């Protein structure tokens, strides 16, 4: 490729603009190079901590999504009233005024009748949409907010427990100091996810430094591919393995961190025969046994080292034991031999892994970092989407975190860290300060969260008025009941006083991201009016009445790309970093930014004061930057207000457009906050039992039985529906995983990524174990039918591999588009979610996470295509 003969004359327009990516919710910092009005390159921003000047494959390919000719450019109106899968909506191009008036009229009618009849949905991929859409639904007055598949499939377990135990959205090893990391169904640093690009660098440095990585996963790709040891297990049995390892560590080897358990957990709290705390009659504070004084006192009145962790006691005639003792007894049940039967992981390996984790923890050691001595536990057990994507979502994840809690490897040097759970704020203004604090019963309340109801303290279950029933099932976040097949039956059972009528969507394609398309289609037909703001016409658009063309991330502005820090700012030592998004290109056709559309809609509905108040509250604007109730702001003005409020009057939007990012150093007391904050975390979930009783009190009289084994205070292994399927011929556990080259169902339309995925052996194929496939007469490249007991069926091309558990069937990403709106993506890959039932029986009774593994039958369709 020869050199350009003549260097182009100094191009009039040749600018590098510091902004943020939006190909996945990692939102890494980018530099967009624009020459003569055309964006010709996207690179990482070396000044920024998020990505450190690098991008993954998706980040650099954003150009081809930006310039995709199939992007929507004009508002569209449906002319064909009949709605159905593949039914042509008969789109007619209309003006923005007509479109917004139609939407505003519909929403205003509903707001006057009952604002709760509006459901608002946003895609998790665009982090910039969180504040505007949450504020819009708060201002409108509806509690029915959902992130659809993005939340339902990969969040309810991980975020709930990361929030309660680590005060953060998810957990990651402290790559700088960790020596032994165990991954349960997670990829941190090897595929997609939070702060993925930064983690890639950190993880690689750690591996190069010699950190040993044990990856527990049914398939050996991404993290498992780079692991020092891959531990294949039967899908969905992570809890059994983790609990067995805990058992080996605590009971067989006697390794646990007593001082940590006494000071930082509810281990010493005394538990009565009714599995609840013994409480001080006056202050209602849980009692602990003071070994020095030989008497039971409230936990607040006993120095931690005097608290009893073992033994049986009597308090006013009531027999009781510290919760840690009950946990130890409970763990005895999980012998490695028993776990081997459930997980197929050999007992010897389980015993070895438990021992290694315990010994490597170096209980009791400390280390000096930046002149500050902090406890040093160079081990980390982390989990994410894979482990918690099951009925047993809560216990799978909690069991993994117990490994950390037993040896005190939680938010200390080298251990399992939350993503920046504590921040002492921006030095000059003191803003952005948040620290976990002690809540009821001394248990930790997270300092920062993504939604505005914190995971702990648990809300009081009540007869639900939310469509997602989250106010009854109080541990749930994103709910399946917005699109479940049995939603009407459940609403009637709990006499929910209204039905949804309007749906406002941003970017979600729930026809593909939730479950079987038939069920979702039925639920969508019930809506009277659906409006969607999106980049493309998706399979979901077939059910919309109005579709509005959105600007993409290279045409938009946003003031908080990587805040809250618990979401996608890299964890561990280093620097705090605040970056923004600024436009590098003009909108094409009549595309408008979703935030401006919402501001416009709010004005037309007449809820501008409410919207502004919600924005003030969501962004926590302080005077003098608070938005006045009656003024109609532009989104740039809101961004400017937030930036000035946080960083001082001279650092508004224009300053950030110039400088890109602002950074300030992290302190050890922030990163390793566990040693500096007086908070305890529950290794014994007493409140779960309390919540279970209350929920049952409401649900059971109405005929909905609550399986109480899910509401026990201690984690257990509870089989998924797929584990109980004995149907002959159904001998594979199908699961799906995140692909490094794709985000949800969105990036298949990017031709570069699609091309790379077509070259990848696994991306669009169905991974199946070589020997088991050959023994069934299945060959590499065969096109097969994959069928569930319920008759749901998808087809796909086989990839015979050694890198998967013999019973496993691995499908990548969220592919298998059938709509015409995304022609490059159409027909690529396998639509896994078609196999998933969406109903009460297939979602966790605790946090409503959908069960993502399903037993399937594989039958050959024809020879190689």
């Amino acid at each position: 490729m020869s050199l350009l003969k003549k260097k182009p004359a100094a191009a009039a327009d040749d600018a590098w603009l510091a902004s943020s990516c939006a190909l996945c919710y990692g939102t890494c910092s980018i530099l967009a190079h624009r020459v003569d009005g055309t964006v010709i390159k996207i690179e990482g921003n070396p000044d920024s901590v998020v990505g450190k000047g690098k991008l993954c494959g998706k980040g650099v390919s954003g150009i081809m999504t930006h310039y995709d000719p199939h992007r929507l450019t004009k508002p569209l109106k449906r002319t064909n009233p009949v709605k159905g899968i593949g039914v042509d909506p008969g789109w007619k191009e209309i003006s923005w005024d007509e479109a917004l008036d139609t939407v505003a009229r519909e929403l205003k009618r509903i707001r006057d009748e009952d604002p709760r009849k509006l459901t608002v949905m946003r895609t998790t991929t665009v982090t910039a949409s969180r504040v505007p859409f949450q504020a819009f639904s708060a201002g409108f007055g509806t509690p029915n907010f959902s992130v659809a598949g993005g939340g339902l499939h990969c969040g309810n377990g991980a975020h709930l427990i990361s929030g309660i135990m680590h005060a953060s959205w998810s957990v990651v090893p402290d790559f700088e100091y960790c020596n032994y990391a165990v991954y349960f169904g997670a990829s941190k640093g090897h595929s997609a996810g939070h702060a993925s690009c930064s983690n890639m660098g950190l993880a690689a440095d750690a591996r190069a430094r010699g950190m040993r990585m044990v990856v527990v996963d049914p398939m050996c790709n991404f993290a498992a591919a780079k692991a020092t040891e891959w531990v294949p297990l039967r899908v969905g049995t992570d809890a059994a393995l983790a609990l067995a390892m805990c058992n080996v560590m605590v009971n067989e080897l006697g390794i646990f961190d007593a001082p940590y358990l006494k000071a930082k957990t509810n281990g010493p709290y005394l538990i009565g025969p009714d599995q609840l705390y013994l409480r001080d009659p006056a202050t209602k504070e849980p009692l602990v046994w003071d070994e020095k004084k030989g008497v039971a006192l409230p936990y607040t009145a006993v120095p931690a080292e005097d608290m009893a962790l073992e033994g049986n006691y009597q308090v006013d005639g009531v027999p009781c034991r510290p919760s840690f003792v009950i946990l130890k007894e409970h763990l005895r049940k999980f012998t490695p031999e028993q776990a081997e039967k459930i997980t197929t992981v050999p007992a010897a390996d389980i015993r070895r892994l438990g021992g290694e984790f315990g010994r490597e923890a170096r209980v009791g050691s400390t280390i000096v970092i930046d002149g500050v001595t902090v406890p040093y536990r160079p081990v980390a057990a982390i989990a994410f989407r894979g482990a918690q994507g099951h009925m047993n979502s809560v216990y799978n994840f909690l069991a993994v975190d117990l490994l950390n809690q037993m040896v005190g490897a939680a938010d200390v040097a080298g251990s399992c860290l939350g993503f920046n759970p504590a921040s002492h704020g921006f030095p000059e203004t003191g803003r952005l300060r948040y620290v976990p604090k002690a809540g009821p019963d001394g248990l930790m309340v997270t300092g920062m969260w993504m939604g505005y109801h914190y995971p702990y303290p648990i809300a009081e279950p009540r007869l639900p008025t939310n469509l997602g029933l989250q106010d009854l099932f109080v541990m749930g976040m994103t709910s399946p009941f917005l699109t479940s097949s049995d939603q009407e039956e459940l609403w009637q059972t709990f006499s929910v006083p209204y039905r949804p009528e309007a749906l406002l969507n941003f970017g979600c394609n729930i026809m593909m991201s939730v479950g079987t398309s038939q069920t979702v289609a039925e639920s969508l037909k019930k809506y009277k009016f659906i409006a969607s703001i999106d980049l493309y016409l998706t399979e979901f658009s077939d059910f919309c009445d109005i579709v509005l063309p959105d600007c993409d991330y290279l045409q938009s502005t946003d003031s908080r790309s990587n805040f809250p820090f618990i979401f996608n700012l890299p964890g561990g030592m280093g620097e705090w970093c605040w970056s923004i998004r600024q436009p590098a290109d003009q909108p094409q056709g009549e595309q408008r930014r979703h935030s401006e559309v919402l501001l416009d809609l709010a004005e037309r509905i007449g809820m501008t004061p409410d919207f502004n108040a919600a924005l003030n509250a969501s962004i926590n604007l302080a005077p003098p930057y608070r938005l006045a109730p009656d003024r109609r702001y532009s989104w740039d003005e809101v961004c400017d207000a937030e930036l000035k409020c946080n960083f001082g009057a001279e650092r508004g939007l224009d300053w950030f457009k110039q400088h890109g990012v602002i950074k300030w150093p992290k302190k050890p007391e922030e990163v390793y906050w566990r040693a500096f904050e007086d908070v305890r975390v529950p290794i014994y979930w007493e409140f779960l039992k309390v919540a279970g009783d209350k929920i049952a009190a409401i649900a059971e009289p109405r005929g909905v039985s609550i399986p109480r084994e899910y509401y026990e205070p201690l984690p257990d292994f509870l089989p998924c529906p797929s584990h109980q399927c004995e149907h002959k011929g159904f001998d594979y556990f199908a699961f799906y995983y995140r692909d490094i080259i794709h985000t949800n169902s969105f990036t298949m339309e990017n031709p570069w990524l699609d091309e790379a995925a077509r070259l990848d052996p696994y991306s669009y194929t169905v991974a199946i174990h070589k020997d088991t496939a050959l023994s069934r007469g299945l060959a590499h490249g065969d096109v097969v039918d994959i069928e569930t007991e319920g008759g749901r069926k998808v087809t796909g091309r086989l990839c015979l591999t050694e890198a998967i558990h013999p019973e496993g069937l691995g499908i990548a990403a969220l592919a298998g588009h059938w709509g015409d709106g995304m022609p490059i993506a159409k027909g690529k890959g396998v639509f896994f979610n078609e196999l998933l039932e969406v109903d009460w029986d297939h979602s966790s009774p605790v946090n409503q996470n959908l069960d993502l593994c399903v037993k399937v039958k594989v039958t050959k369709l024809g020879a190689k295509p």
Partner: protein
Amino acid sequence: MVIDLKRCIGCYGCQLSCKAEHGTPPGVFFARLLKHEEGKYPSVRQMFLPVLCNHCTDAPCVDVCPTEASHYCEGGIVDIDHDKCVGCRACMMACPYNNRYFNAERNWYFGDAGPTPYELARSARHDTGVVMKCNFCTPRLAEGKLPACVANCPTTARTFGDLDDPNSTVSRLIKDRGGFTLHPEAGTSPNVYYLAP
């Protein structure tokens, strides 16, 4: 160039940052990632192998080229002068690493939807009817930058430097970690070394 297979996690960053830098047409990859497995279950390992032109010291592609279009530039970089190349594609057959691509006719990533502004801007310098290959991002080197694939690698698996200088980082890495090359038996003395995973 040295590529550390222990660090590489197969994120396709090299393949795509290279494509973004040069606007190569569909099916043309100056840098590429190969994935394959080794071993039997359960002790199986996935190998990620990023490949690109090795800029061999005695390159067969330069020898077979009838018009001296394929030539050595200063620093040992092998490049093609598109004004000389007649498109006979002998070089494609001669390269044991098949890192050369023939640009038969102009085509775009969105097919008949036509070229995107990006493709128009970037592909102005690509001739049709000639062979294309990686030139270690010579324009970037001229600006003192690292090649696009090296600069963007999230796990810093790729290091670029002067192999002739014994104490450059690349030379030391090769010495310390036992760098190896692909198909050494082809006798082309390639200049891209790999470090064992």
